[in-house]
């Protein structure tokens, strides 16, 4: 038995390249080492990126450490910028320590059993603008920010025009007055009616009937009682006269109706003029004297901001924590290739994609005060899939002069979000009161906020109370009457009580603001500005009259003229018909002694 020639054998195809196992393992080791070295840094950058994208404001982390074998993640030096204010932070935290479930990480699910947050501070200043969504307008945060800003802008009421104490009058454009085109239209209608009546009168052809009757009458004057042919002709002439008079009566009725319409048109010009007066009055920049309007003008710009901010966070929560279990698409990660969309598929009875079971918060509300006070709070059930977790997100905070609570209930199709807070002992910044030449320093005040968004129905209330307000005067308006008036009105008031309410459908809610200053300012304004307003209104009416009278007067005269002309024409012809008929009947009676019916 001889061995087969190896050259004639078909070479055996090797499936694996075993010598590459070594380099591949080396590569894996290198990757593992790189992970150990850079995992914290990668996690920190990713957390900053995701946080910034979600919130629409810069999220900065000084240090982050992953201890996955023990399921711990610690963050030191967390700063979250405010999405609304350029140089202010939403919060800062000295330390966050989270207990993380490791196994769900293999499903890309982040389940945090407990977070302990220490050294939280709110509203601290920052050196750079931390807003992201406000600048780019991109992503969910950008869209929500734009929507809430648009929503808040609907409440911007015109400020009181009190700075100079003058009532401004805009120029009156004659083309915007309704009376002038109405007068022109009525004039055209009157001409048209006159032509129509003349045509109708011409078609009556009364001439032949009158001439024939006149001739019959002449003939009858020489006729005897036995001249039956003449008598018959006379009776026929009377019948023709009666029919002609019927036609005249019909025309008369048409003329009467047409004239009545023209008269109504003339009367309509008067009511149109009243509307023009109202329009002209709207051009007067009159300050409103009603207390609710004054409250809104004074405090709406300031009180709408808290509502706008709460709505922003609530709407963000609704986008990131939607009810139900349907697949949800969000923009994919940024990369050189197209980002695409990431679609999440929540599964019943499974873990949500993100969940914070509980968090314990410890924070300072007045970090710069000589003796800052420590507060405590808690948070539970913060999740991306409320339907899976089965309980609403609840947060509370309490401490000296502080009580706050939050509940985001997205378990059912119609989400219900509720937030409330009462914070006392807060020093609010001084601000210029819009439209009024004074500056208000509320001092240490108590603020209350209540906000409920049930589906698309909003009920919200914001209140500020202070008992030691200070007023300072705007020197630029020292010598104006209104400046003096407002200053005298408010400078003696030591208390401030402002309350703003929003209610109704979210897109078109009712907004009301009241304050303890409203009534006082309203009364003073009525007393001082009442005469000025009356004078300005009179001036405006005179302007309207001067523009309108040139058009309305001729039209009124023309209608009267046409009426008189048409009615005279009808009366004249009817008189001739009646006269001839009477003469014919009289002559027949004389001849026969018979009275015609």
């Amino acid at each position, binding site marked *: 038995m001889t061995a087969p020639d190896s050259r004639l054998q078909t070479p055996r195809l090797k499936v694996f*390249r075993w010598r590459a196992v070594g380099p*591949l393992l080396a590569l894996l080791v290198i990757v593992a080492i790189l992970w150990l070295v850079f995992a914290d840094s990668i996690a920190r950058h990713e957390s900053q990126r995701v946080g910034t994208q979600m919130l629409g404001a810069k999220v900065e982390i000084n240090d982050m450490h992953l201890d996955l074998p023990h399921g711990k993640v610690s963050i030191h030096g967390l700063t979250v910028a405010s999405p609304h204010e350029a140089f202010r932070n939403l919060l800062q935290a000295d330390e966050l320590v989270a207990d993380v479930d490791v196994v769900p990480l*293999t499903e890309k699910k982040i389940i945090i059993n407990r977070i302990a947050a220490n050294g939280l501070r709110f509203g601290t200043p920052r050196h750079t603008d931390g807003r992201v969504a406000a600048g780019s307008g991109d992503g969910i945060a950008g869209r929500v920010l734009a929507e809430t800003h648009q929503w808040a802008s609907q409440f911007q009421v015109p400020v009181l025009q009190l700075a100079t104490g003058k009532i401004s009058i805009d120029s009156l454009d004659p083309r915007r007055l309704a009376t002038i085109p109405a007068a022109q239209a009525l004039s055209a209608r009157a001409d048209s009616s006159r032509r129509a009546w003349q045509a109708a009168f011409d078609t009556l052809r009364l001439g032949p009937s009158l001439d024939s009757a006149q001739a019959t009458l002449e003939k009858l004057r020489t006729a005897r009682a036995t001249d039956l042919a003449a008598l018959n002709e006379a009776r026929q002439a009377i019948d023709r006269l009666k029919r002609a008079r019927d036609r005249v009566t019909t025309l008369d009725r048409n003329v009467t109706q047409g004239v009545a319409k023209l008269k109504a048109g003339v009367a309509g010009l008067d009511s149109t003029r009243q509307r023009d007066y109202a329009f002209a009055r709207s051009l007067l920049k009159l300050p409103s004297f009603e207390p609710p309007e004054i409250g809104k003008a004074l405090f709406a710009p300031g009180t709408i901001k808290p509502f706008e901010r709460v709505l922003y966070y609530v709407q963000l929560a609704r986008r990131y924590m939607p009810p139900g279990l349907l697949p949800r698409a969000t923009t994919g990660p940024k*990369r050189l290739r197209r980002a*695409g*969309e990431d*679609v999440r*598929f929540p599964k019943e009875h*499974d873990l949500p994609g993100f969940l914070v079971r509980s968090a314990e918060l410890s924070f300072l509300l007045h970090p710069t005060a000589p003796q800052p006070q420590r507060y405590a709070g808690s948070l539970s059930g913060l999740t991306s899939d409320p339907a899976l977790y089965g309980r609403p997100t609840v947060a509370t905070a309490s401490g000296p002069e502080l009580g706050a609570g939050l509940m985001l209930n997205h378990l059912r199709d119609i989400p219900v979000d509720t937030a409330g807070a009462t914070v006392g002992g807060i020093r609010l910044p001084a601000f210029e009161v819009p439209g009024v030449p004074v500056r208000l320093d509320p001092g240490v005040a108590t603020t209350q906020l209540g906000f409920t968004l049930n589906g698309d129905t909003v009920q919200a209330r914001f209140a500020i109370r202070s008992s030691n307000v200070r007023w300072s005067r705007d020197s630029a308006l020292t010598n104006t009457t209104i400046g003096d008036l407002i200053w005298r009105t408010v400078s003696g008031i030591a208390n401030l009580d402002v309350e703003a309410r929003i209610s109704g459908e979210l897109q078109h809610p009712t907004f009301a603001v009241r304050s303890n200053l409203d009534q006082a300012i309203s009364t003073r304004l009525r007393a001082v500005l009442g005469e000025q307003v009356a004078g300005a209104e009179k001036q405006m009416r005179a302007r309207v009259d001067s523009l309108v009278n040139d058009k309305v007067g001729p039209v009124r005269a023309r209608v009267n003229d046409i009426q008189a002309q048409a009615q005279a024409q009808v009366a004249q012809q009817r008189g001739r018909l009646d006269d001839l008929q009477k003469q014919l009947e009289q002559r027949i009676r004389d001849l026969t002694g018979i009275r015609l019916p």
Partner: protein
Amino acid sequence: MFAIIKLIQSLFGALHSEGTPGQLAAGIVLGSFLGLTPLLNIHNAVIFAALVLLNVSFAGGMLGWALFVPIGFLLDPLFDWIGHRLLLADALRGLWTGLYNTPIIPLTNFNNTVVLGSVVFAIVLAVPLFFATRLGVVRYRATIGERVRRSRFYKGVMASKAYNVYKMFRP
């Protein structure tokens, strides 16, 4: 410049290697996965490991990667559309929900429209690409291959030191 030289070396190295046309075509198919789909995904680690461990043309893999990267960028809108249609199809919701809630699988980012669309496209393209490439290599070697091998250009390119790197993984 180095990348272009290396690409040319890879191309000629692969075409004139001792590997069979099938090995070269398989390498290019695996490389096309790397080029067509977004690179930093776990499935590409598997593809890369297969390219290294399986007795296919590594040079072909690098060539396929280089060739299909620009095509991947160009076809991203198509991949997005395919992925969108697949991920949001009612009939497949149960499948995706099951996969999404299975350990490890979500790390592949299959739930991203571009990733899923490009992977599906690459899988569909794999079979025709394999046979077309294999046929092309056979025809090349049978016709102009020998003339190219003897040309000065080929000898110049292959004399570069970079060729040594390729030789480590030649089939």
